[in-house]
Each structure stands twice: as structure tokens, then as C-alpha cells.
């Protein structure tokens, strides 16, 4: 976990596959690459078996580009579609049992702090809505209540995509799915509200059809989690298979859902604002100068 591991053993470079050489020589490690530069540097995500046109794939791709220090990051995931792509990138990936990802990440981030002190090592959990809000619910909530300092990203496709279409707590009420033929009986869980109640320092919702916004929220969430407290991003990442969305309409669907019920929201605590402005130069969070009151 450092720039030291992103280089060739002397003499071996020429034997490495082209994709690997490109990644070492033209990847984002040690540089500040951005979403607007894509197409000109080698991204650290490689080929993977997620479905063609899956919005979750696009989101994961953008997330890897957005990581402030990919060479100092560990991703944690669990069963579900996302791990098929998250595991195919040049960032260490820890795969827990289904649902225990926030427990694993808690231990990992504490261990990294003990080992590396103030040197930032980022832990980022990315897992499906089922893994996070159903099976992993207690691990997720408890990590927030305990104020564990890492980022949790929910890949919310509003269904168990990987196992063929069961409803999850994040499915909308009334939704009929292959394995929920009568329609879901209760409301979508308010994980955003729970994240705030449990004390997350940063909570945001995004859809992948705004790549620069995805980049911006992930950067902030990771930087805040370094010192302030837990951060949570909930991303709408439709499952075009289970929701029968033609692949060339996936972005239209993202747009429609964003306008309908997944508008961009961002909550950021005062401590997190101060942290971003003093340590990372976020001018928008500098304290507003108090306007001089002139008495007439």
C-alpha cells in the first residue's frame, strides 16, 4: 500500500502484460487524475464480467477515478454484482462474508491507523443495497454509531441483482420483481436518515449520469473519513437486467429517476466543512466573513 508497490521489480518490466505496463507507466498512481481527463490515462480498473451497460459498472469506474490516493486505498466489498468489477482493479480488495463488510472495514481502518499513524490510508466499502441495508444492516449501523472512520458507498440498484431479482429493503413499495411477484409490501428504507441519526459526518445521494458530481462526492467522503468520522454515499446504480431497461436507455432512466426520487442531496457536518477547508483547500467551506453592520 504505497507508491512502492506500483512499480516493476528491476529487469521484469518487459515481461509484464501490456495492460500492466500501461498501468504502472500511465496510470493514476501518484498523480491527480480527474474524470475530465479520462481517455488519456490508463484507468486502474480492468475487464470484468458485469453486464453490458450496467449503471453500477459506470459508477464503480468513476469511483476508482475519484479516489484521492488510489495507491493508499483498500476497498472492502461483499457478495453481489459490484465485487465482480471492484475486484478487477489495481487497488487491494477485501471480500468479506455477505453483509460483514462494515465490520471488516472497522477492524481494517483501526489496524491501518495503528500501523501507519497519521499517514492517510483510506478504507472504502462498496456493496449492494441487500448486503448493506438487509443482511449487513447491523454491521453498517454499528460502524456508524461507533464513529469508525471510513467511507461506506451503497450501490443501490433496488434489488438483489446477483441472485436473480429478490426485493431488498431498498426496493420501492409496490415494485414487482421476478422473485417478488406480489410487489413489495413496505417502503424503501431511509438509510440516509439513519446515517445522519447515527452520526455520519457526510451523507450524499448521487446518480452516475453526472460523472463530475460522483467524483466530487467520493473525494469529499474519503477525505472527511480520514479524520472526522464515518461518511456515507448512496448511489442509484440501476440493474438493467432485473428492471428490464434497454442498455441504451440506462442513462435516460438515471435521469428520470434522479428527477423523480433520487435528487442530489448532500449533508456535511460543520466539523467536516472545517476539515475540508483547512486541510484540503475547499474554499466553499471557509467560514463566511461576517458582514459589517453599518448603522445609519
Amino acid at each position, binding site marked *: 500500500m504505497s507508491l512502492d508497490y506500483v512499480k516493476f521489480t528491476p529487469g521484469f518490466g518487459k515481461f509484464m502484460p501490456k495492460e500492466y505496463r*500501461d498501468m504502472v507507466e*500511465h496510470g493514476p498512481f501518484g498523480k491527480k487524475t480527474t474524470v475530465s481527463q479520462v*481517455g*488519456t490515462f490508463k484507468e486502474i480498473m480492468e475487464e470484468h464480467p458485469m453486464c453490458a451497460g450496467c*449503471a453500477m459498472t459506470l459508477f464503480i469506474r468513476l469511483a476508482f477515478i475519484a479516489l484521492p490516493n488510489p495507491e493508499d486505498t483498500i476497498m472492502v466489498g461483499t457478495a453481489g454484482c459490484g465485487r465482480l468489477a471492484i475486484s478487477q482493479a489495481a487497488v487491494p480488495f477485501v471480500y468479506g462474508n455477505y453483509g460483514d463488510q462494515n465490520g471488516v472495514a472497522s477492524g481494517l481502518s483501526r489496524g491501518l491507523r495503528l500501523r501507519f499513524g497519521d499517514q492517510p490510508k483510506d478504507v472504502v466499502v462498496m456493496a449492494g443495497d441487500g448486503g448493506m441495508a438487509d443482511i449487513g444492516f447491523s454491521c453498517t449501523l454499528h460502524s456508524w454509531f461507533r464513529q469508525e472512520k471510513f467511507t461506506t458507498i451503497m450501490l443501490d440498484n433496488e434489488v438483489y441483482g446477483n441472485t436473480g431479482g429478490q426485493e431488498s429493503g431498498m426496493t420501492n413499495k409496490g415494485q414487482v420483481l421476478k422473485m417478488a411477484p406480489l410487489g413489495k409490501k413496505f417502503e424503501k428504507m431511509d438509510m440516509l436518515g439513519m446515517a445522519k441519526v447515527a452520526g455520519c459526518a457526510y451523507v450524499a445521494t448521487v446518480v452516475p449520469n453526472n460523472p463530475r458530481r460522483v467524483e466530487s462526492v467520493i473525494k469529499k467522503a474519503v477525505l472527511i473519513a480520514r479524520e472526522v468520522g464515518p461518511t456515507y454515499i448512496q448511489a442509484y446504480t440501476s440493474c438493467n437486467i432485473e428492471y428490464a431497461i434497454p442498455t441504451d436507455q440506462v442513462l435516460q432512466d438515471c435521469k428520470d429517476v434522479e428527477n423523480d426520487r433520487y435528487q442530489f442531496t448532500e449533508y456535511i457536518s460543520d466539523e467536516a466543512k472545517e476539515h475540508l477547508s483547512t486541510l484540503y483547500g475547499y474554499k466553499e467551506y471557509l467560514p463566511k466573513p461576517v458582514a459589517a453592520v453599518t448603522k445609519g
Partner: protein
Amino acid sequence: MYLVANIDQEICAATSCRLCTQYCPEANTIQYGTELGKDKGFKYGSAYVSVDRCKGCAQCVWVCDNMAKHKAIKMEMIDQIGDQALTENISYHEKNTTAVLASPWKS
């Protein structure tokens, strides 16, 4: 045979908006060559597709048609495209990539 995205470089190089590169779900697939089209008088280059990575979802077509409004991308049968970019022929440079275009069908 199967469909992959094919970018008309003359239409693309006329504006070079770089939108589709940000929306393709697959990494390292739509590349950007700042030199492409310069021989035809275009200034800022064009996007192109590394066809061996393209999964044929046509999201880039939606982006170019509806967001960029340039209509530069069409889905075409891979054996009908002629010279194409393949991962093995792509080189990265400062702020640019270049590809030696080759037909996978001719040896």
C-alpha cells in the same frame, strides 16, 4: 458477429466534447487522441473505441445523440468496421493516446 461502437472521427473532431469518454461503463474503452483529425485541419482531436473492450451497450450513442447532440457514434458489426483500435495497439502519452489502427480480420 456482434455490434460495437464506431466513432465518426470527422464529426467528433469538429467539436471534441469528450462527453462519451466519461459515460462508457467500461474502463479504458473510449480513448481520446488529441492528434486525430489534425491532418484534416481539426484542432483538438477525436475520441475512438478500443473495440476489444466494448460490450456493445450503446450508452455512448445515447450520450453523443442526446447530451452532446453530435450524432458521431453508430453501433456497427465488428467485421464491417475495417481498421479499428485494439488495446494492444494503443499507446499513452502526456494528455493523449494514439492507436495504430488495424483490421483484426486481415492477417
